[in-house]
């Protein structure tokens, strides 16, 4: 299918219809075109198995952005190996280690994470091109957060 031939408005219309009707899947075939939309809803998740979601919990726990969950499984994902504050550059005056589109080699420092007054240089796990930088400069990161995509 050639790029951008897809009818975005149709998809939006159908998505709205799914919302309205509570459907979780619509598939349309017309001549040689076939379009199938699926939305995995909370309801679709096996309810029994779903852990209790206490009122307070829902409020307290910031839900992980849906995108992150996918990105963490991306083959080029660089996951934070430690907790701390992540920086794009070695110092406020310095240039960022990398920018989007840069080609990096395995082992090359691509960011630093400060923890306990120590700046830990974080190396790229592989050679490739930086396609996404997923943290803001000087912000806290947790263990396992997706920091960059290098592919």
């Amino acid at each position, binding site marked *: 299918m050639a790029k951008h031939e897809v009818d975005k408005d149709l998809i939006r219309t159908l998505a709205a219809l799914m919302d309205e009707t509570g459907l979780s899947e619509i598939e349309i075939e017309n001549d040689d075109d076939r379009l199938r939309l699926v939305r995995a809803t909370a309801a679709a998740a096996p309810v029994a198995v779903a852990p209790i979601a206490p009122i307070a919990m829902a409020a307290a726990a910031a839900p992980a952005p849906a995108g992150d969950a996918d990105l963490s499984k991306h083959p080029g994902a660089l996951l934070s190996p430690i907790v701390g504050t992540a920086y794009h550059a070695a110092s406020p005056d310095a240039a960022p280690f990398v920018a989007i589109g840069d080609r990096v080699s395995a082992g090359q420092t691509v960011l630093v994470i400060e*923890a306990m007054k120590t700046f830990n240089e974080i190396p790229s796990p592989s050679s490739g091109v930086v396609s996404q930088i997923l943290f803001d400069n000087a912000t806290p990161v947790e263990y396992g957060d997706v920091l960059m995509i290098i592919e």
Partner: protein
Amino acid sequence: MFEKVLIANRGEIALRLHRACREMGIKTVAVHSTADSDAMHVRLADESVCIGPPPAMDSYLNMPAILAAAEITGAEGIHPGYGFLSENADFAHIVTEHGYTFIGPTEQHIRTMGDKIEAKKMVRDLGIPVVPGSDGEVTDPEEAVALAEDIGYPLLIKAASGGGGRGMKLVRQASEFADALAAARRESKAAFNDDAVYIERYLEQPRHIEIQVIGDGTGKVVHLGERDCSLQRNNQKVLEEAPSPALNDAVRQKIGQTVVDALSQIKYTSLGTVEFLYEDGEFYFIEMNTRLQVEHPVTEAITGIDLVREQIRIAAGAPLSFSQEDISFHGHAIECRINAEHPTTFVPSPGQVGDFHAPGGLGVRVDSGLYAGYRIPPNYDSLIAKLVVHGTTRNDCLMRLSRALEEFVIGGIDVNIPLHADVIQQQSFIDGDYHIHWLEEFLGHHK
């Protein structure tokens, strides 16, 4: 008072700490491994930080990660709970050095009590009774005979260089001593090329009785009575109660005062537990735990004091909010440790919890991070819930405990609820007549 406290633990105790903070208006930071992202305390906490992968070494024992989490969240105090880093003097040191408050005793007290030989020396000097015995090796037989008279029978002669029971002799009467000593020295010489032996009182069926204390660092120390933790398996406590069926009020006050006098001298701060073996009316020091104890709720039940709240207050610099005269004991309390394990084979049973329904009603407290659908990770301790029951008398407490165990539903995994239900029906247990070997003997006969 703290604005925000970091909870450096997991499971039921992390939830306990969260609740105490919440009730004091303190914000909570839950740090957790990737295995605990769905834990109840993580979901209830104001903030949560994932600090590492499932192995405790890389998460709950990972000091830099915990400090980094305190750093990025702006926590002021760090509560270590029990286990993990709670009795790690280096952790207390590094926490303090980085400008956070360690919610627990001083680094020095943790360090001293963590060294068993040093601890025994120190508490003896402070007036706490220890197991009587020779100060070290005994080489002279005449000296040994004289010492044995002082120590009393039964006693053990042990090879100073020994181990594994070799060169060890149990002596029940004075008349047997000379021969036993000669034999022990011979065996020791043969086995270790060293005929030096030492002598220690032998306790046959002691109880494990521990005294709960709290101090505010000014020298003011208060004891909150004892807990009887004699019901053990593989040196793990299974069920605890207070008061001990073995103590009367005079004995309680005497040992309590002894402990208070000792710990006042070193200006002990925070919660602590002095553990004793108890036999024939005598206490023998085992060790001191410089932390919050798993079984603290039984003391809370009979004193009406929120120990964690008080511990946090003291860490924040407040003086003790009560004196010894304010402490009185009401009724009887028993805690059952509910483990994810088979009730007879004791095989651990992690996995997904099916139904979960905690018992309720008067005098019943459940501390547990479990909920229906929760997946118990295989990486940690099998303790998943504590059932704590309070009653006016020990008998009322046992009746209530029995009905609470009947009501408790934890599906999908094996739990040791049937073991508890069985134990509390045994006549010896009902009579309060048990010791540290009782449970293993009971389980042995049961097979």
